[in-house]
């Protein structure tokens, strides 16, 4: 990789972050909130992509990590009166713990077995959130409004209900996940993860403890998902079981596939596209899932590597 590609890759990623920063000045209010939501979900998809796209492990249990962050933050605010910074830390800790535990057990399997094991654990997690509904309030969930006092930064008082605060917190969390993904995939560790994806046996005989690397990838991926879940709760003030369901594990897979698996920009592109397709289609028809299905068929036919993946194979092979 030459110096020139390094600077254009880093430049492109910083330009995307700056473009998102500037976008809030021109967006009408409705889209303002929508883009904030997209950025939080794109952070979730970035975490997912790190595991699927760069390590080659397909999980169907990521909602468990997202929901760990969500409940870690939501429950501590609701019951212990935590404020946003401590609650975010609690959410991150919860997702680290859950992903370490799932990794130690689930990574004994690979391929389809890994997919099923993660789905089963996630399903058990989901059912647990329903079973302990006296604490979690199950699928009805609970709201945090009124419980979080505004963040005080110097003389600024930042309330999460304020759209500008919402947007910029979402941007900060997304940028952190986005740039961390970029840095990690271009580091020596990222090179090992890609090698793992391509040929695990060979990687082991190049002297790498493949289990440790897979565990690292899973924990970073799970923690990014947890950060997204925690932020989602803080910004949109709601905690509920539906975020722990299998459907919510399938979403990041779809977003990543649509945007381009194994590309750093793909998750953002995929999440944005899918969210807006659903939004536009549901304004036109009640059977908006038909439109989503049509897009997915088109994707498989013409862009099997996703939007950014397709661009990379056709025009810009330097994209990471």
């Amino acid at each position: 990789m030459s110096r020139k590609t390094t600077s254009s890759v880093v430049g492109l990623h910083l330009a995307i972050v700056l473009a998102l920063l500037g976008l809030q000045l021109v967006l009408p209010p409705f889209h303002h909130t929508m883009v904030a939501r997209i950025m939080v979900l794109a952070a979730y998809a970035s975490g997912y992509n790190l595991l699927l796209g760069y390590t080659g492990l397909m999980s169907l249990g990521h909602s468990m990590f997202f929901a760990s962050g969500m409940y870690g933050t939501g429950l501590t605010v609701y019951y212990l009166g935590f404020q946003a910074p401590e609650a975010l830390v609690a959410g991150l800790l919860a997702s680290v713990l859950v992903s370490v535990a799932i990794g130690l057990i689930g990574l004994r399997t690979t391929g389809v077995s890994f997919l099923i094991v993660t789905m089963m654990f996630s399903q058990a997690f989901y059912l647990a959130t329903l079973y302990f509904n006296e604490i979690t309030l199950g699928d009805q969930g609970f709201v945090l409004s009124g419980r979080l006092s505004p963040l005080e930064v110097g003389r600024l008082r930042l309330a999460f209900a304020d759209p500008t605060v919402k947007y910029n917190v979402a941007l900060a969390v997304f940028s952190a996940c986005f740039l961390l993904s970029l840095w990690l995939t271009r580091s020596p560790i990222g090179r090992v993860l890609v090698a793992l994806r391509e040929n695990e046996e060979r990687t082991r005989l190049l002297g790498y403890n493949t289990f440790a690397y897979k565990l690292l990838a899973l924990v970073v991926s799970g923690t990014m998902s947890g950060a997204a879940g925690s932020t989602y709760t803080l910004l949109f003030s709601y905690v509920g079981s539906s975020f722990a369901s299998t459907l919510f594990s399938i979403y990041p897979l779809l977003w990543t596939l649509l945007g381009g698996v194994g590309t750093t920009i793909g998750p953002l592109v995929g999440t944005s596209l899918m969210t807006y397709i659903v939004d536009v289609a549901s304004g036109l028809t009640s059977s908006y899932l038909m439109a989503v299905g049509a897009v997915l068929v088109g994707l498989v036919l013409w862009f099997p590597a996703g939007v950014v993946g397709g661009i990379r194979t056709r025009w810009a092979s330097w994209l990471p």
Partner: protein
Amino acid sequence: MSPLLETAALSKRFGGLQAVQGVDFRLEQGEIRAIIGPNGAGKTTLVSLISGRLSPTSGRVLFKGRDITTLRAWDRVALGIVYTFQITSIFKSLSVFENVALAAQRRLMTSLRKRIGLRHSTLVERVDAALVKVGLLEVREQPAGALPYGHQRLLEVAMALALRPEVLALDEPTQGLAPEEIAALCQLIRRIASTGTILLVEHNVPVVLDLATKVTVMDKGAILAEGTPGEIEAHPDVQKAYLGL
């Protein structure tokens, strides 16, 4: 002085098949040791037990006098025991540079700090040095899968070299190569042996007689004979079991 590498009563059983049984094998520093034998003699299994790709049913493996029987494959690589595959096993979708960089960075990632941030220039230096040795520097940026077969074998050797092996186990390196490619590979192996130790599993008898300083003949999972190439050629049991003379 203890040998560089030693196995004691090493055995491996796959279900009903005793692939390696009670092998006592010694490898001295600086040797080019060839292991020959008919198909199914247990050559690849023995080398896999030494490299840690397989773990033995019983017996021990010692490296520089230290028992490494329970050490995993990746830790043995860190000690300098490197294995190259019988079937070409490179990362085909990655560039030649990335393939060798994976090997080279393993030697450089000695601390947490170096795991995270590695000086790119140091890495490039090491990769280029390995590529120069095998003559693949010009195709550095090409995808490995696009290389002709002979070059893929050389890339495999370059990856092994970048790991800076003390013992390099080559599993049938000449398989599928043209005669002039074999000659070039032999020269390369001789050059590597000037600083390291080579363990060569090979079917090609002329190559073995030409390269090896010592030959081990295996049959039915056990060592049948051991000696210089000249002694092995003259050995009556070997002629009967393997050379078919």
